[in-house]
């Protein structure tokens, strides 16, 4: 086991090359709906039980299934009203289970990136061949059902092996959302390929906010605005990234929608905000800033 994942060098906030976003924007803002499929009876991974209760965990299964049956459409329309495209963090088996949702997102010009096959198939304990098969499945399924090239990755249920990010880069992807160490993109050190870490904030993620931090919907709206205000202010000097990661089974509940939409409308109505997708942010960073950031980073010393 490693003590340090070794994916990035040290790059202190005040000593970095300046990031310039397209159009002189201060903040690259993106919204990442996690469109997920959880299996009722998945095979067991020794490192993690899929459900909190013994099978069948009807409560937890149906709690998530709500997102695809009801919550998605509400979230989708909210984003449409604010002119905000989504970057879908997709369990790619959704393409077989619920293609209606995939077609709707594709027609609205949304990006699809991979969140694994199912949110109940974890990467821990996979062989390299199995892990490559998962990534290839994502590449193929997204291409076949949406025509899009797969560029981004967020590991299913945030589960990993030590080699996950290396494989993702080697198989041609250009960004990951799996590192939470920064408010700007950064280079990821991988064996092969060019990979960027794009900020995907857990602090702004509705799952963490609602189910870990246990906040109320209006408070979530307040948190989103405060986060934006600070990143907008700091973005005057050098471009920042703000992400809102969502789950239709949480944000799509009727009593939560208004506060979210108000915050989304607040953010998207500011001047100097680049309403982007994950792919667009990664392309811009990799083209213009990746090399300079890598050069500016300091090596991390050995821990005692």
């Amino acid at each position, binding site marked *: *086991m490693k003590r340090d994942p070794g994916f990035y060098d*040290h790059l202190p906030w005040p000593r970095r090359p300046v990031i310039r976003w397209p159009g002189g924007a201060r903040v690259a803002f993106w919204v990442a709906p996690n469109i997920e499929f959880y299996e009722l009876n998945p095979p067991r991974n020794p490192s993690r039980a899929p459900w909190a209760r013994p099978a069948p965990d009807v409560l937890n299964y149906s709690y998530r299934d709500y997102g695809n049956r009801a919550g998605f459409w509400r979230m989708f329309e909210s984003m449409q009203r604010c002119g905000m495209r989504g970057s879908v963090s997709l369990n790619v088996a959704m393409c077989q289970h619920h293609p209606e949702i995939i077609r709707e997102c594709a027609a609205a010009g949304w990006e699809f990136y991979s969140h694994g096959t199912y949110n109940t198939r974890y990467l821990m304990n996979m062989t390299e061949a199995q892990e490559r098969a998962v990534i290839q499945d994502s590449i193929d399924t997204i291409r076949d059902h949406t025509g899009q090239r797969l560029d981004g990755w967020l590991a299913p249920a945030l589960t990993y092996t030590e080699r996950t990010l290396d494989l993702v880069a080697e198989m041609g992807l250009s960004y990951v959302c799996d590192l939470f160490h*920064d408010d700007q993109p950064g280079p990821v050190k991988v064996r092969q390929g060019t990979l960027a870490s794009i900020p995907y904030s*857990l602090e702004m993620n509705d799952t963490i906010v609602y189910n870990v931090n246990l906040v109320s919907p209006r408070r979530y709206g307040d948190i989103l605005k405060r986060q934006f205000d600070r990143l907008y202010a700091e973005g005057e000097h050098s471009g920042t990234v703000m992400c809102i990661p969502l789950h239709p089974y949480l944000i799509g509940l009727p009593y939560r929608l208004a506060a979210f939409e108000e915050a989304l409308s607040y953010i998207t109505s500011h001047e100097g905000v680049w309403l982007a997708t994950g792919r667009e942010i990664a392309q811009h960073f990799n083209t213009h800033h990746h090399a300079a950031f890598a050069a500016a980073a300091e090596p991390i010393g*050995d821990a*005692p």
Partner: protein
Amino acid sequence: MSSLPADYLEYPLRRHGMDHDRYDWTQLHQRRGVAWPGGARIALWITVALEWFPLDMKGQPFKPPGAMQTAYPDLRHYTLRDYGNRVGIYRVMQALQRHGIRASAAVNAAVAARYPSLLRDVREAGWEVIAKGLDMDHLHHGALPVEEERALIARTLEILRPAAGGAVRGWLSPAKSESHATPDLVAEAGLDYLCDWVNDDMPYAMRTVTGALGNTPAHYQQAPGHGSPAGVQPGRGLVAMPHPIDLDDHTILVQNHHTEDDFRNALTDQFDLLYREATPADGRIMAIALHPWVIGQPYRIGALEEALAHIMRHRGVWAATGAEIVDAWKAQQA
């Protein structure tokens, strides 16, 4: 059915004061007052934790606050903690520098080894460095053999002393967890003050011993008149500093799920009461414990900025490091 031994109802330490000899029993309101430099009523003491949580942490004998949670490799918690060392700390530094406040950075030795430029920034800001153990996976605890703990403290200081750009005088154990011998070993290593105990608003004197310490509490927890175990002599002593667990961003924002405004209000309410309670002849300490991976998030940093603006608007606030407060306090002890 198990049964209790006969001595379960014996109380050898039932006496006036404490059930140990580590420190004396005194009450805050009955002590002789301490006058801070310049006639200040409040000594403002901010500690900022610079921590490293290894990806492979074992969490023994318990998981410290902030530990890894999910199956290995838990990139989620590893990177969210590391956020503090590369991004969050600089928001905290800026918030303090605006008022000319110097903090005491409580640093894991691993942070100094891994991020030398961060320690350079700490030194250039004029902050004090206090030792926070080796890293967040090396806890001090009751089952740790004394020789291992002595070596752990020595290794920690060997790394931190050169990185501090001056003497390291304070100690804060990771997760505030100690063995029976931690204060003795910390004093023996030449440090002056300890930040683990949360039982006062003001500094107080702590007794220590040195020598062939055993693994039992016997060297300080003993009935009056029993004397010290063989090979143990009185140590140089320590000052216990009132480093809080409740006025702490992790406790309030993460553990208690209170809002940023609640955190700001906790700081300003604490300050307002201490400010009323204090006089130039009987000063108080306003201590705030911060973790850059918590308070340094964009949506949270404003709460600290607002609280500091409130505090620093008042006359008679002495923003000081822990060592400066200890020195001022010591100079007035008879």
